[in-house]
């Protein structure tokens, strides 16, 4: 684990995997869209609006997945103080926030024709809205301090406390039986959904996951560059005294970011 936590190793790995991630995302996304929009049938109750599910459900999964990833990275940055964990958490937050927002928006667009309302304070919807606020709170908090280390400490703490919301989102449909329908894929007795709908759903989920890793690689790389810039600017100030301090000595991992193509 620690081997991969070295920025140079991470960047090399990201470079090797990038073409594969792009290929997987494009192929599964394209196939998923085709299957979802043309091949899969309309639902016997919900008609064609069921096609909203092929983005609504994967975006919801991604919202939760990214949050768990962000919280794990937050924990690693608190415990081991590893900068890459902090950088990964910061890079994950906007992707997770976007997917959560998309889940709420597409849910609204599905709720209006099917439930007759854009929004209702149902347990699932409310806990998902809280998830979005947790993301936004994290992003505001990590950037609220002049010292990035203090920001990441506060953000990681918030991310970890917010983890309690994840099982609430998952089980809200069982605990409070209100408007939102219960789970039909991740069930103890296997999916209760027809394969013609399960296939596009799963392909879209894979595509969104691939998209997440692509964005993660891009944002981690630019954050490493930003830190290297900060370190160089600092060393540039100190160097006016004597020309011996090098930027790489002050902030070693930034060096590898500069070496990336």
């Amino acid at each position, binding site marked *: 684990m620690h081997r991969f936590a070295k920025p140079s190793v991470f960047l090399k790995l990201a470079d090797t995997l990038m073409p594969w991630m792009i290929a997987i995302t494009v192929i599964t996304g394209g196939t998923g869209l085709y299957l979802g929009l043309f091949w899969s049938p309309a639902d016997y109750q919900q008609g064609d609006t069921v096609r909203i599910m092929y983005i609504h459900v994967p975006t919801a999964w991604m919202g939760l997945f990214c949050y768990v990833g962000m919280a794990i990275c937050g924990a690693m940055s608190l415990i081991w103080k590893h900068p890459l964990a902090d950088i990964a958490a910061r890079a994950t937050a906007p992707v997770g926030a976007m997917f959560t927002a*998309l889940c709420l928006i597409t849910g609204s667009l599905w709720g209006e024709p099917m439930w007759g309302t854009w929004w209702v304070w149902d347990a699932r919807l409310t806990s998902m809205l809280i998830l979005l606020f947790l993301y936004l709170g994290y992003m505001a908090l990590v950037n609220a301090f002049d010292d990035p280390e203090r920001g990441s400490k506060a953000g990681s703490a918030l991310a970890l406390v917010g983890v309690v919301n994840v099982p609430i989102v998952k089980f809200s449909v069982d605990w409070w039986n209100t408007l939102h329908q219960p789970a039909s894929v991740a069930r103890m007795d296997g999916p209760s959904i027809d394969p013609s709908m399960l296939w596009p759903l799963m392909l879209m989920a894979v595509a969104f996951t691939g998209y997440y890793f692509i*964005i993660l690689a*891009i944002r981690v790389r630019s954050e490493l*560059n930003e830190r290297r810039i900060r370190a*160089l600017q600092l060393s540039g100030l100190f160097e006016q005294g004597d020309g011996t301090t090098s930027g790489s000595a002050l902030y070693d991992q930034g060096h590898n*970011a500069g070496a990336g193509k």
Partner: protein
Amino acid sequence: MSDYFMMEGYGLYIWSSYAITAVAMVFLLVTSLRGLGQSRIELDQLETLLKSRRPRRSKSRDARP
């Protein structure tokens, strides 16, 4: 074909969900790539600046009494 796009009258809801998702995903991708490009330019400028500064400063230090 236009029947297909109507989606039994739900077309507006369905197509706008897909369109909003696509726009958001492309937007995040483009801003992330732009941020990366910006950071690379800034880093390059800073590194060449520091490199060009170093010998000059050592020279001036030598010249000092």
